[in-house]
């Protein structure tokens, strides 16, 4: 017994080049679609991870552009502006606040970094309060420094790899020519912290001549407490700005949404083109087999049988194209990641294009849905072919 499915798929081999080109068209649109959807969820996930991994929900910074400040913070740069450390105790008194930690960010030019030098990020932190914010930090070697004014350093995973340092080794801060003893090396976190060198707050303040000055206060809010009233109160503090990381996330997502709409439009156009291609292929195939389809009706096929046969051909094309496109997207996800990263003003760490099982199923469902719609007209036309017309064409032919 031969099934309708066998008849349908074998027919697609009749014009191999046309079938392959149609599948390629569907595959390309499927690739664009799955990559876009993967970017949609990957970017948000990566951004959320970056922000959550900061360990605090609010930051207080000296007045300036909050987005610049937040971006610099995320990128591991410096806040450029400073505030007095006494602000810390004022903030800590607020009832909503669970923990606070002072941070002084500094950047020095390292001529040995990369091919033409680069900026090395140093974070001056308090060894008592900072680790409580970064509870997910795990040490590959060693641990935190104990003294607030020791010349000791904890290196992020990538910073240690780059400098080829182990615990007990010394590192030199360029420009200042000051040496630190490495007391701890962190495990990979997948965040900007991997490239950072943490040193005691007082030490960094002394080196950069910023006594009792800090760039940032990280605030952890008590569990279940609404941050809005606290933000209102903190706004009253002079010469500081409040950066809510939830707001930062929202703002970045809004900025990125324009790009998303554009890419979505391109994907939509690609899908429409593929759809037209499918309709054209199947319709051409139906007209080429006009007599054959008519004859199928003389051997017992009902209009519904012909409809299903042609519809099945459309589905096979879409399923094949969709699958190839998804495989392509999975293989080239890293390349897509690099391409997107090169055009975005800010890209969080971690994979920007995340393609999971659910996304694969959604894309396949979309492509199959499009296939079903595309196949309707050709299948309907084929179902209406009358055997007599086919025979007459034979006679006239």
């Amino acid at each position: 017994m031969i099934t309708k499915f066998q008849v349908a798929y074998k027919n697609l081999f009749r014009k191999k080049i046309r079938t392959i080109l149609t599948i390629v068209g569907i595959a390309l649109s499927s690739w664009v679609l799955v990559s876009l959807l993967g970017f949609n969820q990957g970017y948000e996930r990566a951004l959320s991870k970056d922000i959550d991994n900061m360990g605090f929900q609010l930051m207080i910074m000296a007045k300036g552009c909050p987005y610049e400040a937040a971006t610099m913070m995320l990128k591991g740069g410096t806040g450029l502006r400073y505030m007095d450390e006494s602000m810390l105790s004022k903030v800590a008194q607020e009832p909503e606040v669970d923990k606070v930690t002072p941070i002084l960010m500094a950047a020095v030019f390292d001529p040995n970094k990369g091919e033409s030098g680069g900026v090395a990020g140093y974070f001056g932190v308090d060894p008592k309060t900072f680790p409580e914010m970064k509870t997910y930090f795990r040490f590959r070697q060693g641990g935190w420094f104990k003294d607030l004014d020791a010349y000791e350093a904890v290196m992020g995973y990538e910073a240690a790899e780059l400098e080829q340092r182990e615990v007990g080794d010394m590192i030199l801060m360029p420009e200042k020519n000051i040496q630190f003893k490495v007391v701890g090396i962190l495990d990979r976190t997948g965040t900007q912290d991997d490239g950072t060198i943490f040193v005691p707050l007082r030490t960094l303040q002394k080196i950069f001549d910023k006594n009792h000055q800090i760039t940032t206060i990280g605030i952890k809010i008590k569990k279940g407490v609404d941050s809005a009233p606290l933000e209102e109160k903190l706004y009253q503090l002079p010469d500081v700005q409040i950066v809510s990381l939830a707001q930062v996330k929202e703002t970045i997502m809004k900025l990125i949404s324009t790009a998303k709409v554009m890419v979505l439009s391109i994907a939509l156009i690609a899908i429409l083109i593929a759809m037209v291609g499918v309709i054209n292929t199947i319709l051409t195939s139906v007209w080429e087999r006009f007599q054959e389809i008519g004859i199928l009706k003389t051997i017992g096929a009902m209009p519904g049988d012909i409809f299903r046969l042609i519809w099945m051909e459309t589905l096979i094309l879409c399923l094949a194209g969709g699958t190839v496109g998804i495989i392509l997207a999975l293989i080239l996800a890293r390349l897509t990641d690099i391409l997107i990263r090169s055009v975005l003003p800010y890209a969080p760490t971690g994979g920007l294009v995340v393609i999971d099982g659910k996304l694969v199923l959604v894309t396949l469902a979309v492509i199959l849905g499009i296939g079903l719609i595309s196949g309707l007209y050709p299948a309907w036309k084929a179902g209406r072919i009358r055997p007599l017309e086919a025979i007459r064409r034979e006679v006239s032919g």
Partner: protein
Amino acid sequence: MNGNQTIMEADALTKIYRRGSEEIAAVNGVSLHIDKGDFVSIIGPSGSGKTTLVNLLGCLDNPSSGILHLGERPIFGKGKPLSERELTKIRREVFGYIFQNFYLIPTLTVLENVMLPLTFYDKRGRSDDASRLLKILGIDHRKDHLPGEISGGEMQRVAIARAMVNEPQILLADEPTGNLDTKRSMEIVETLKDLNKREGLTVIMVTHNQVLAANAKRTFEMRDGQICELERTAFT
């Protein structure tokens, strides 16, 4: 009327086509009856209306007027024309068709082509019959070949097997030898004769070749849309 069971009876079947204001009667008041197990040939010059008549007898088209019975069952003449769905239901119950151009599916093997009707309608679960038919028709050694790999005569035998797989009551063959040389044509007619004799199959064959037509038990001639039966040939 003879004492045999009538399988098909037409009374004043007419098919009129309109070309502008002109009316052309391609089939004009044709009456005939065909018995079960008959082998009928219909001959006539081009444009005489033989194919149109076979289309009406084979329920491929509705007549403009007239009556058609298949056995006791009235088909045409009940007033309104039958829909394509109703015609298909009758066709797959009663008829097997073969055509001049074979119309085998080029991507399916010989065996798959023969089994194809069962995909749409398996009248009596005859899926094992495809191989048996190929054997009867002497082409079982070609069952795994594609149509493009076999000769014209073999292709028509495959088409006959395809038409036979659902055990039709009547086999309609419209110019079945039109694309074959004399030798192959004779072989196909011999095959039809054999099926008629051995399986008791009723065969209606349209041809313009009088020599081939002479192989039938009864021969009708169509001329200007009208039919007349020629004298019966000896058939053993």
